[in-house]
């Protein structure tokens, strides 16, 4: 069973071809990496998958449902969550509030129940808070729940973004360069976290530059270059693929 299926996805910005007829499938419960040199269209691909940019052509189906033209919030509701390359937290909210607000699409209290504080509202708030703490524990930030998110160190901000993504209760998580700017120890911890997410039954696609991470955890790799998919396969297949080596190192090598 394929969780995600991308068919002939194309995005042009004016004359620039950011992605061109990209197709791939992702198995439920697997970890896939998307690699490629800078400007290969990786983030644009993520933006198309999450409804931030509308593709020029092609189709995306998630769990056999067409999501190509859906709004961002509907896509999240169906079970796709993401993080951003340059962290986008709610900086002036506390750490726990960041995770609480991310459960928005899984809760439903309205104005009236908020004003009269009905028992269903109080229960819901309690559950939101408990779950938030649970997610924070998962990423190892439970001790910082009342810190202002913007004042966390860089590595913790990255982890908080992941907690926020998990809080939307997704089936598929898209991680945009989760280990960028991290030292080897932090990178190791991040790999552990990603594996843990997989154990929880989540499917993961990551954009990553660190080949140790890519080769270490992914089951499948898609290589993009100038918006075109030039290769796909297991880590060992990709390592020996001449097209990939060429794209990364240039022709002479």
């Amino acid at each position, binding site marked *: 069973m394929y969780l995600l299926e991308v068919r002939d996805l194309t995005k042009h*910005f004016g004359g620039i071809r950011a992605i061109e007829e990209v197709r791939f499938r992702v198995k439920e419960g697997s970890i896939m990496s998307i690699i490629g040199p800078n400007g290969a269209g990786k*983030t644009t691909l993520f*933006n198309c998958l999450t409804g*931030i*940019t509308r593709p020029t052509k092609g189709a995306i189906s998630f769990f056999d449902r067409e999501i190509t033209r859906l709004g961002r919030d509907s896509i999240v509701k169906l079970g796709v969550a993401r993080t*951003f390359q340059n962290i986008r937290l709610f900086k002036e909210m506390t750490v726990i509030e960041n995770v609480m607000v991310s459960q928005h699409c899984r809760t439903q209290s309205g104005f009236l129940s908020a004003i009269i504080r009905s028992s269903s509202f109080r229960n819901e708030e309690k559950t939101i808070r408990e779950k938030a703490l649970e997610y924070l524990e998962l990423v190892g930030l439970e001790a910082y729940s009342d810190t202002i998110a913007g004042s966390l160190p860089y590595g913790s901000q990255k982890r908080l973004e992941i907690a926020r993504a998990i809080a939307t209760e997704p089936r598929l998580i898209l991680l945009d360069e989760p280990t960028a700017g991290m030292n080897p120890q932090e990178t190791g911890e991040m790999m552990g976290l990603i594996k843990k997410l997989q154990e929880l039954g989540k499917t993961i696609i990551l954009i990553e530059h660190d080949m140790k991470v890519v080769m270490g955890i992914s089951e499948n790799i898609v290589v993009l270059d100038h918006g075109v998919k030039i290769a796909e396969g297991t880590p060992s297949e990709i390592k020996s693929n001449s097209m990939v080596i060429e794209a990364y190192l240039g022709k002479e090598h």
Partner: protein
Amino acid sequence: MFTQQLINGLTLGGVYALIALGYTMVYGILELINFAHGEIYMLGAYLGIIFLGFFTAIGLTSYSLPLALILTFVLSVIFCSAYGFTIERIAYRPLRNAPRLSPLISAIGVSIFLQNYVMLTQGATDKIFPNLFEKAGMEFIGARVTYTQIFIMAASAVLMLSLNLFITKTRMGKAMRAVAQDKVMASLVGININTVISATFIIGSGLAAVAGLMVAAYYGLVNYSIGYIAGIKAFTAAVLGGIGSIPGAMFGGILLGLIESFSAAYISSEYKDAYAFIILIIILFIKPSGLFGKTQEEKV
């Protein structure tokens, strides 16, 4: 009737276009709606009356009217440019890296300050611009064109053309376009951002001063409150043409002048001031980037 409205519309449009240029230039560079810009135009109108009054008092006007007029013109423009420059230094520059809301609020503050500053020093009643040219004019296909109107149309055209030349041909003009596109890159190639921003304010304010002078001569009356409504209309013109675009501001100004003049004549003059807003709202809903503007994708 039609030709008459066309001429009135073009006159008004020339004035809006001159003010709109200042909005569009500042927005292009700082992404700031310079609320105080309309007040600079109002200052221009007042300074014209003040200087002309001064030259009449010392007898220069009766000695040589053209000389007095030229001096009035030059001094008003210099003063308004100085005001524009000073406002940027005091109220906007310290907020260069602040959240978007801060400079906008600061601009509203400057606008309130300048209105009351002029009201307190010059009085709340209307000021009269000396009627120097009478209502002299000529007939033109069944419509009456005053010399003042001809002057306004000609002066607006000349100024707009020179601005276009300045922006496309001179070093400073090119630097302005570079800063508008990418501040960081521009500073990396050695452009002094502060100088460019100051120059933008000086030029924009000078153009607004000319607009103010011409309106004072055209209507013969000015009031401390004329800046607000003219400012909003000029901003509308800038948005109409696509904010940040200089030809857009010129085109938008003239279009707005024509629309206002015709709808006041053929629909109802009671809502004269509302047309600008209605047009603005319609334009923003249909094509938020304006007629000449480019749509931008969100950056993620």
